[in-house]
């Protein structure tokens, strides 16, 4: 690289950093105050883009930007007041689920309102050319963005440091309970913060339209980038978000400049993993104040009553008899449901009793699937052998990554699991010769004696039921109790001689191993695997299933898997806007049963008994 191209790449990085900062700042503010992991932040950004690109044709680009930002702010205020406000009392993860449901609804709304095609906006009037810098052409608009990012940072800084509102926001960010004890009007504070965050997201989206088209795929990609930035910078830290956005954008620009463009697929996750391993609370973050007293406290784990055991046995027996009454597709669908049930139960194992909220559990599902695929296709192992040994690869992966993850806590841990999952994903995605790259591996069929739908159904039924029963059983063992103990009070656990990290590490590996069993079964049921087997969306599906079913009960994930898979299958077949419908169903469930479906049923049963 010449000096002039180094300079230009540096400026390119700065321009990208500004856009990234806007969306990350809003996310960080919202998280800092309300503790909501707002999946819908990327959707707000997307709305900003579409509103601006729609308005730009009529009133010009420069007017469309503030209007779009205000419109999105208004939408954000509505969302906060009508939806989120009702569920602040619910467990934090459930709030995240609600925002995820919003993602689905907003996406389908956008499709309905603006149509499926990408819309490339106009160039910014007045800044539609390029200037010559060190012999290279550089867009004027990018110079504007480079200046705009720091301006927003300065404005936010003044707002936070110089106004009473800012003082309240900072107080709430540091210690929410303290702030509420000091008589802060939380309702108003939360609404205003969410509105401002939404406004920043909308602004970020609107300002992007001279640089890129509005597309329906932008929402999740932006929110993941923004999370990475927020976590690297340290949750709730605005300057941290700025520095992290700068860091990520520059590293990306120079990866490209130096000819390592393939690295851009994963570099941000590598940076995040490195930062978190070295600084467990991000660059500018502080060790979070642990909430005092019990949050949502679970009831003690009681052994299942005779009735419950009888019911579970009856369900299993009914499943065993199912092929007598139904064939064909019912069995195919049931295989999927059983596999996702095991996947969800393994996630619940580490999330619920283990207390480690993994956002990268699909990695271990995928490792199981790839383990099976690689053994069968690359090593030529028989299907039975591949199926038996594949989960070990997942367990091994979980053992390696878990070692790092259990050293962190809270959202940082969650994001590190995501980072590792993305790193594995990108390796699988790019290692063409070995993993088949983006196309994956095909030709993974079960051995002839298991090839019929009925035979494979029985294989899945036996494997999944046994694995689920085993996981449940472990929860009643001293090890399972120790996991819960380490979650309930790490301090106390440590003070009675428990090695908390080692316990959690073991738990993480067990969960990974069992997810791997599900993955291996999945591979042979589909005949092929691709990197999507371990993509973020599968991790999200897992979370949705667990939360939908209810994280505080053991059977919740199973019913969640059944409901979610069935819903997706039926909706996708019968309704055009099925995503929005699923989103709406999830929202309704969250509002009606904040403790999940099974939690709700269990509570009702208990009420009737007493």
């Amino acid at each position, binding site marked *: 690289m010449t000096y002039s191209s180094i300079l230009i790449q540096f400026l390119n990085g700065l321009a990208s950093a500004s856009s990234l900062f806007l969306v990350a700042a809003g996310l960080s503010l919202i998280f800092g105050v309300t503790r909501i992991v707002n999946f819908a932040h990327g959707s707000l950004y997307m709305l900003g883009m579409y509103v601006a690109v729609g308005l730009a044709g009529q009133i010009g680009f420069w007017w469309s930007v503030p209007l779009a930002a205000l419109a999105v702010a208004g939408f954000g205020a509505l969302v906060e007041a009508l939806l989120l406000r009702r569920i602040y009392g619910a467990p934090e993860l459930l709030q995240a689920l609600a925002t995820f449901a919003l993602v689905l609804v907003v996406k389908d709304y956008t499709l309905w309102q603006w149509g499926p095609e990408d819309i490339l906006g106009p160039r910014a009037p007045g800044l539609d050319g390029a200037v010559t810098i060190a012999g290279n052409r550089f867009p004027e608009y990018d110079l504007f963005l480079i200046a705009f990012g720091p301006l927003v940072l300065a404005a936010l800084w003044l707002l936070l440091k110089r106004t009473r509102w800012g003082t309240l926001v900072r107080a709430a960010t540091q210690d929410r309970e303290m702030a509420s004890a000091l008589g802060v009007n939380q309702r108003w504070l939360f609404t205003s913060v969410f509105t401002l965050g939404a406004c920043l997201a909308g602004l970020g989206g609107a300002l992007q339209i001279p640089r890129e088209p509005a597309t329906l795929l932008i929402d999740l990609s932006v929110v993941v980038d923004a999370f990475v930035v927020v976590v690297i910078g340290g949750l709730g830290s605005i300057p941290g978000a700025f520095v992290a956005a700068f860091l990520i954008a520059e590293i990306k620009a120079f990866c490209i400049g130096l000819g390592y463009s393939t690295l851009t697929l994963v570099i941000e996750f590598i940076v995040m993993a490195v930062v978190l391993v070295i600084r467990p609370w991000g660059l500018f973050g502080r060790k979070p104040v642990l909430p005092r007293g019990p949050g949502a406290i679970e009831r003690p784990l009681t052994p299942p009553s005779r009735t419950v055991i009888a019911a579970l046995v009856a369900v299993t027996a009914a499943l065993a008899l199912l092929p007598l009454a139904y064939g064909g597709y019912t069995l195919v669908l049931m295989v999927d449901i059983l596999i996702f049930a095991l996947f969800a139960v393994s996630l619940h194992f580490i999330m619920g009793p283990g207390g480690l909220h993994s956002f990268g559990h699909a990695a271990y599902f995928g490792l199981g699937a790839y383990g099976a695929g690689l053994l069968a296709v690359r090593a030529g192992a028989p299907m039975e052998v591949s199926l038996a040994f594949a989960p070990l690869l997942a367990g091994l992966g979980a053992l390696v990554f878990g070692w790092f993850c259990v050293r962190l806590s809270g959202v940082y841990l969650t994001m590190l699991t995501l980072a590792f999952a993305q790193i594995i994903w990108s390796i699988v995605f790019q290692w063409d010769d070995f993993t088949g790259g983006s196309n994956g591996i095909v030709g993974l069929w079960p051995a002839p004696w298991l090839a019929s739908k009925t035979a494979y159904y029985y294989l899945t039924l036996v494997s999944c039921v046994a694995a689920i029963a085993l996981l449940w059983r472990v929860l009643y063992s001293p090890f399972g109790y120790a996991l819960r103990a380490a979650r309930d*009070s790490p301090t106390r656990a440590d*003070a009675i*001689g428990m090695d908390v990290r080692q316990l959690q590490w073991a738990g993480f590996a067990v969960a990974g191993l069992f997810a791997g069993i599900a993955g291996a079964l999945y591979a042979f049921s589909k005949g092929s695997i691709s990197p999507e087997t371990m993509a973020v969306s599968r991790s999200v599906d897992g979370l949705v299933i667990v939360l939908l079913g209810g994280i505080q009960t053991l059977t919740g994930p199973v019913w969640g898997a059944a409901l979610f898979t069935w819903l997706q299958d039926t909706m996708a077949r019968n309704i055009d806007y099925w995503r929005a419908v699923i989103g709406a169903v999830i929202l309704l469930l969250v509002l009606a049963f904040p403790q999940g479906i099974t939690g709700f049923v269990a509570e009702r049963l208990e009420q009737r008994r007493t």
Partner: protein
Amino acid sequence: MSVLAVKNLSKAFGGVQAVRDVSFAVAAGELLAMIGPNGAGKTTCFDLLNGQLAPDAGEIEFEGRSLRGLAPREIWRLGVGRTFQITATFGSMTVRENVQMALLSHHRRLSSLFSLAAKRYRGEADALLARVGMRDQAERPCAVLAYGDLKRVELAIALANQPRLLLMDEPTAGMAPGERGELMQLAADLARGSKIAVLFTEHDMDVVFTHADRIVVLSGGELIAQGSPQEVRAHAAVREVYLGSYA
């Protein structure tokens, strides 16, 4: 021989010397109170003893063995029990299960995957609960207990590994005055009965002077006095430190 011997212990944070050259010892069956105004270094001292912090200089010996560089869980394994200023119990478990956890850990049965945790050491747990007067609440979830009862549960947990030393950080904090004496009496009886050495910090001077065998006084990170309650009460430096608050 003393159970716990602290020699020339020092710890600084940045430029602030939180604990400076502190030495004292606790004998078996003895209740030693550590007192001092806020910021005197009591909490730092406790965190050094239980392994939460590493000392800059000095020595901590438990039964002649150095505790320096050991993690809290390793210190516990040697026979040091602990209660917290703000109670820390396992909220999703019953009272009995909380004690069972300590017993499982004591017997090194935590990695067992297939026995039923709730059936292990049930009798032992109930016996411990009986000693602290919580036997009748064994089935209740810890999350719903009254604060004083939680303190008792903590005591039972601390006794589970038959400790020779018990570290109690503000054992009566947050309790009603009437309950305080009761809890401290219980602790004292258990300690004396089982020859356990007890080191505790306490704000409530009534509790201290009623139950402690000896008292060490910290101020500004330094140990300014130690001796029997009568001696400490009469000590000039102590009177000066506590002037206005307790004199």
